[in-house]
């Protein structure tokens, strides 16, 4: 499924760490955007409609 949605792997990090007097569980994940590549139909992006630059398909 990911190949349709991103064309690239998800990026992120999940670490436990202390900083100052506090201990944190720091977690971050890059949210991919839907991508329509040239010549490919079976991607979510194709449900777009032009006027909102595709955002209406969100």
């Amino acid at each position: 499924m990911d190949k349709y949605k991103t064309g690239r792997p998800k990026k992120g990090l999940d670490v436990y760490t202390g900083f100052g007097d506090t201990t944190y569980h720091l977690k971050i994940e890059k949210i991919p955007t839907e991508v329509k590549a040239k010549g490919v139909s079976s991607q979510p992006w194709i449900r777009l409609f032009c006027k909102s630059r595709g955002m209406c398909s969100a």
Partner: protein
Amino acid sequence: MAEGSLKERPKERDPFGDKSFPCFVLNPSCSLKYIEYPCIYDKERDNLFRINEDTLNFLMKHQSIPKSSVTSPEMEKFLRFLFSEGLLLNSRKKVRERKFLVEEKYRPAIPSLRYLLVHLTLRCNLRCRHCYADASPQNSTDIPFSMINSIFNQMEEMQGLIVLLSGGEPLCYPHFWKMNDILPSYNLRFEILSNGTMINKNAAKRLNVHHVQVSIDGMEKSHDFMRGRGSFKKAIEGIENLIGADMEVSVSTMIHKKNVNEFDDIERMIEGYGINQWIINQPSVFGRWKDNSRLSVSLETAADIMRRYSRARGPHESKTNFTCGSHICTVLTDGKVFPCPFLNENDMLMGTIRDTGLRKAWKNRKGISIADLEECSSCEFLEKCRGGCRFRAKEYGNVCGRDPVVCSVYNKSLNKLNVNIKKK
């Protein structure tokens, strides 16, 4: 080519190696928001990062991080990641803390409102045959400037990500440049949907937006047929000026009978400019296209072109059970809020900027659930297309029915689908 493409971040040296920068600070183009989850949004590159509550609290508390205070390898790893993604910058000194509106009271109704299409004006220097807004040089309907401030403030408070400025031609809006001056003060990404013809070198440099979509509806003859004599050359000049000003540019093309054989030529042209986002669609029978729909091509032809040529980045991934419009709505020039510019009949009215406000209007949204699409329930592509466009489905008879254009894109036989191609 890099011109006109999504901006790439240059590779940086070891962030901990340069002693002349003793601090990390949050990149001014990044802001902390709370949509369905806490997040960091980089408006410059349209990058969204999901974070957890601990990370939100950490970044709220530590917007300037002295490198000397980083002693744990895990913290160093984390900061290196933020730096590599451009969320942190090197700094010679601490910066003033920025305020982010992430408290509970600001959080939006779910699904979140992420994108907002704003019709600034129905003025336009062109009079295109397919304009759904019926914009023209004779139309002088504008959104009041006082409402613009209110819309942006409300969108920012609601944790919105992108405002799409449309019309009419946005540059014909009488307060456009006054509005342009205030855009950098918002934690929002701004994009313009333009015909490109008014973007001279000076305008391209002055624009405080992050992206401009320019309409190119064919090569010179067919574009001018749809949009008026001389408009092609001016639009191309606009694109060149934008690229010269290092603006991210995309192209939008409507398919019609005059340009149907020109897509290879258009592709060569836009690739020559290094533009890697090309949004292609079939005009909806709305506005002036109602009088010109004889210029429409068949659904199959449109679908084939869309499949072969279009390429772009769309919205950020989201898992909702709704059809199109889960995260977007539209403000028209009178301040009325609708799901989209096409679904603008009274029964679809969500509210107004002045009376209900954007937050309440968004709460009033009547989303259509994917489960409501009974005709699509057995379709293998439903998870990907999520029913396509609800306005087009409505045009073909049922707002909860099929969108035949998107069905065609997925190579579904319209005869088998028993879609009523003759519109009401």
